[in-house]
């Protein structure tokens, strides 16, 4: 996961704040977990969120989603449903137009594994 984060930030510091990652702390099923990211930003041409990246600590692959926004977005908020393989930390990183990176993380308890499940034939 650290490599995946470094690929996004190029080694720039990750600052806590401005980003709110919403994931339920305890979930019904790891196959489909509601996830939303909201970033405080005026979303003007000179000050906006360029991208939001979601990564996980313990899935088989760290990357989950990357979205690319701009001033036309109006609001920096996205929602989706993701797979979580195990109890772990989920991290959201917002890349700002001024080159700064902000982050939030949530610890999620998963009682049923999603990605590594045997296929039922």
């Amino acid at each position, binding site marked *: 996961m650290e490599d995946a984060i470094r690929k996004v930030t190029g080694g720039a510091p990750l600052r806590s704040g401005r980003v709110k990652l919403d994931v339920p702390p305890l979930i019904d099923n790891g*196959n*489909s*977990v509601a996830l*939303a990211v909201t970033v405080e930003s005026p979303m003007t041409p000179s000050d906006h969120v360029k991208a939001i990246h979601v990564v*996980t600590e313990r*899935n*088989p*692959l760290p*990357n*989950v*989603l*990357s*979205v*690319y*926004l*701009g001033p*036309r*977005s*109006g*609001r920096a*908020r*996205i*929602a*989706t*449903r*993701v*797979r*979580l393989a195990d109890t772990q930390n989920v991290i959201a990183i917002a890349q700002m137009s001024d080159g700064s990176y902000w982050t939030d993380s949530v610890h999620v308890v998963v009682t049923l594994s999603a*990605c*590594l*499940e*045997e*296929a039922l*034939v």
Partner: protein
Amino acid sequence: MARAVVNVPATVKRGEIIEIKTLVQHAMETGFRRTQLGELIPRDIIRLFVCTYNGAEIFRAEFHPAISANPLLAFSTVATESGTIAFTWTGDKGFSVTQSARITVV
């Protein structure tokens, strides 16, 4: 063609920020599952989602196998003018689905 559902308000005031919700039918096969015989089921997922507003790109998303099957994606845009909002999902095995919605901005 795989089914896709988009939810765009039909009529909106200029400058209002609208939330768009999209849903598309796709198994998002991760590439990590095995059959009962132990054979790996190959990865087959949507890779890219692009949204355009009267031809201009307003939103783009890159999906990875950790996105759930039948992906839901909700995002926002500013209602600038009347016209067409178009949605395109592309992925493995030549997967390509488009959907569009008309929006009237008053």
